[in-house]
């Protein structure tokens, strides 16, 4: 018998008869070619329920989830930077903390609080610096098109 059999709980491999393997391969290849021939003989149409449509849904959900998570992260980071910055400023007033870098951390915390709270504005400035234009990619699912596209 071709393939493997289970004997007393063990998988025992057996030699595959050559003629059966050839037959199976030929049958499989013929079946694949018949399927491919059928599939490749279709017309030039743009199906709506295709891979591209599903990936569009996936990317839309990823942008929604990612955008929400980043908003939350920036919100929490701004709050954390403010709290830790002001706490470091308070700690810096103690004489034994004067040389511990608390004052620098206080300044950085308050500054980064503003940076995280104004994240869209900073991303906008970075976009102008990098490409000379406002961010084109927003939280909505979109598609890159070259030239006039093919629609």
């Amino acid at each position, binding site marked *: 018998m071709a393939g493997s059999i289970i004997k007393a709980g063990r998988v025992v491999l057996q030699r595959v008869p050559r003629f059966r393997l050839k037959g199976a391969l030929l049958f499989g290849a013929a079946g694949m070619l018949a399927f491919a021939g059928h599939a490749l003989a279709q017309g030039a149409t743009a199906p709506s329920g295709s891979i591209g*449509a599903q990936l*569009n849904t996936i990317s839309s959900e990823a*942008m929604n989830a990612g955008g929400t998570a980043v908003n939350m992260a920036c919100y929490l980071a701004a709050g954390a930077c403010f709290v830790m910055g002001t706490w470091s400023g308070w700690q810096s007033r103690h004489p034994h903390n004067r040389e511990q870098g608390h004052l620098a951390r206080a300044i*950085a915390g308050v500054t980064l609080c503003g940076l*995280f709270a104004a994240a869209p504005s900073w*991303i906008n400035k970075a976009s102008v610096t990098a490409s000379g234009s406002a961010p084109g990619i927003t939280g909505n699912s979109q598609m890159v098109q*070259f030239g006039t596209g093919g629609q």
Partner: protein
Amino acid sequence: MQGLVNLTTDIADGIAVLLPALCYLAACGCFLFFGWRLWTWSQPRHHHHHHLNKPWVPFISLVLCGVFATFPSFLSRANVSAGTGLAATLTGYTPTMPPNASNVVGANPQATVMNVVTMFQHFFQAFGAACVFWAIVQWRAIVNGRVDGSPTACGVQFIFGVMCINVVSVANGVLSYFETGG
């Protein structure tokens, strides 16, 4: 043949809609990295590591945040540099109509090659844009010290991506070279 063209065009559509999502997430990630790295620098106990010997690392991430947020504009500028000026824009998702593959054989070999290249143009363009995106991501990882790689290889991948985006112009140039014998 038509089915293959349909399949590759649809895969190209998939890449073209995934790319803005990846750019969006990459831009957000770069910005968060920038802010978080500055915060860790301000910590007195972290002065001995976290890229203090490479102070440009967070600022490169900030600039790349802008690159990712304006990725189509960046691609358009790269195409201008490549000499084609092919505009890359963002649009809502609409399934691309695949080219008709029934007339693939042209009057001469050059025309046949151009027909084939034109039929798979959408896939080349989307794949090229993905190559450019990945080259930038890889270069950032190398700069951050997270990956041991070659920035030169990233540059080659970037150029390869731009060439794929402009595959029709490249194919025309190569064919004209063969027609004129150099």
